[in-house]
């Protein structure tokens, strides 16, 4: 008899009781946020976050060793804060979930070791889960059961992926991803070029509000000709970033002022155009009527507006979790963990390894 048959339907709760509403604690440390979330089924109880982003500002990007040190210092206080916020004791928790990849190896290791310590101390099952699948599952906390199948567009400083989600607890199908920079990375680099501090996304968004989106017609990578055959659902932002840099440098060389708001708006338009065009194309091609957008870049106002416009025209419904659930957090890991428990999926072993390049087809490691 397989593990699945033993447990399904519904996982094990306290006292071994089967439950569809498990109390799950989730830990996220794949980048610079130490996140600990607690959910009961699809209900969010706590979402505690400690960010080391301020320590990375002067370096213009996340420094792995600085992030890892910060995770160690923040871990226990953040777990305690989450329990206090949720009004639960650790002993009440039914299962522990943790991001085991993809992400920064040293950072992931801190979260996974902490999750294992909780597993040992509480004698509860451990789920090492995929960060990207967690970005998808988090929407259940805000909008209820995930419409499946759906297409998920995940965009952040670390990833840019188009996924086909038929069952988030069983496996996610990768349609495409970036072949060079992540979308958020392009935002950070262009922001630096325009004189904004790290992280650059919110500054570009703000500045672009007063700019002309059609001021410069920046290139849209992988959107035409042969590229569309080979990379229909892939992204490339490296050429765009270089085009912006060349344009700005040409202006500076000529001694002309750089129209920052117009450049920001034109760059942002190019990114959002590429992302939404490909996401809608993926929905249509796969006959999918639901588009989910997640990741830190989902907070971008132009991306949301353009996606909603184009989706409405195509008869596709868009779901975007609120910004604090879009960025990396522990609640998303807990949300996926709760889904796995409720669906009776087998937990991970205590010798669980981290995997910095975990494939999105792996939901539980």
């Amino acid at each position, binding site marked *: 008899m397989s593990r699945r048959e033993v447990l399904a339907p519904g996982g094990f709760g306290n006292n071994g009781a089967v439950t569809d509403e498990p109390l799950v604690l989730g830990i996220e440390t794949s980048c610079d946020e130490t996140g600990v979330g607690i959910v009961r089924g699809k209900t969010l109880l706590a979402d505690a976050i400690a960010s080391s982003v301020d320590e990375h500002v*002067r*370096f*213009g990007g996340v*420094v792995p*060793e*600085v992030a*890892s*040190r910060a*995770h*160690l210092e923040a*871990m*226990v206080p953040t*777990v*305690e804060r989450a329990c206090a916020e949720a009004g639960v004791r*650790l002993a009440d928790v039914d299962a522990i979930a943790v991001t085991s990849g993809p992400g920064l*190896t*040293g950072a992931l*290791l*801190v979260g*996974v*070791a*902490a999750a*294992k*310590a*909780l*597993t*040992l*101390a*509480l*004698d509860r099952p451990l789920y090492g889960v995929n960060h990207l699948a967690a970005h998808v599952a988090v929407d259940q906390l805000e909008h209820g059961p995930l419409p499946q199948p759906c297409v998920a567009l995940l965009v952040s400083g670390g990833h840019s992926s188009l996924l086909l989600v038929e069952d988030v607890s069983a496996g996610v199908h990768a349609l495409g991803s970036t072949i060079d920079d992540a979308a958020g990375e392009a935002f950070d680099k262009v922001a*630096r*070029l325009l004189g904004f501090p790290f992280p650059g996304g919110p500054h570009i968004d703000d500045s672009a509000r007063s700019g002309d989106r059609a001021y410069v017609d920046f290139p849209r990578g992988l959107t035409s000709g042969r590229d569309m055959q080979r990379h229909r659902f892939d992204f490339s932002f490296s050429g765009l970033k*270089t085009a912006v*840099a*060349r344009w700005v*440098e040409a202006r500076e060389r000529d001694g002309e002022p750089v129209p920052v708001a117009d450049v920001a708006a034109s760059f942002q338009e190019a990114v959002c155009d590429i992302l939404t065009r490909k996401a809608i194309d993926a929905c249509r091609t796969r006959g999918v009527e639901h588009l989910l957008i997640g990741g830190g870049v989902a907070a971008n106002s132009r991306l949301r507006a353009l996606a909603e416009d184009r989706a409405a025209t195509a008869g596709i419904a868009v779901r975007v979790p609120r910004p604090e659930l879009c960025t990396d957090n522990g609640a998303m890991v807990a949300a996926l963990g709760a889904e796995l428990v409720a669906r009776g999926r087998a937990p991970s072993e*205590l*010798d*669980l*390894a*981290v995997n910095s390049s975990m494939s999105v087809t792996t939901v539980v490691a």
Partner: protein
Amino acid sequence: MLLLAFDTATPAVTAALHDGERVVAAATSVDARRHGELLAPAIATVLRDAGADRRDVTAIAVGVGPGPFTGLRVGLVTARTLAAALGVPVHGVCTLDAIAAAVSEPVELAVATDARRKEVYWARYRRHDASYHRVQGPAVSRPEDLARELTAALPVLGRGALLYADVLTHQPGPLDPDAAVLAEAVVRGEIELLAAEPLYLRRPDVSVPGPRKPAL
């Protein structure tokens, strides 16, 4: 009492349980790249081998380095989280002190572990009242600089001394810490107790970006 001790600041992943009378279980494996995978199973193993329940643990002792950061943090976050979840105190122990605690002679010695990048973590000890007392360090140095610092061919214990036996006087003995020795030293009060804070001894390896370079 039941003390759970472990150390991950060297290639060894070592765990032990001490009941106040003696070490009741111990498990050690050596694999510099798999601390994160090996530590939790090692703790589960010593608990099972001792027939102990996790709730019987009354204190935790953890090696706080110095040592390679990634492995070191696995031990520290495990110790801190276990201690918080079990509601027991956590003590830090200098990993180099734990290696010295495994021998009883000579009267003066140094301990060196591999700090990578052609350097060693080290400390110098003098023995009195039946235990070693750290008189210098911990610090991180190039082996040739350490050799000059120690002078007079002072015996050096540990993997760092073996690795650089061409410049340091390697003292045969344990290469890495053993949690059983660490636990025994803590129970006997023969080792200095520290906060469970990592001894990194090096700043994070980062560079502040310079002025923007042209794209071409």
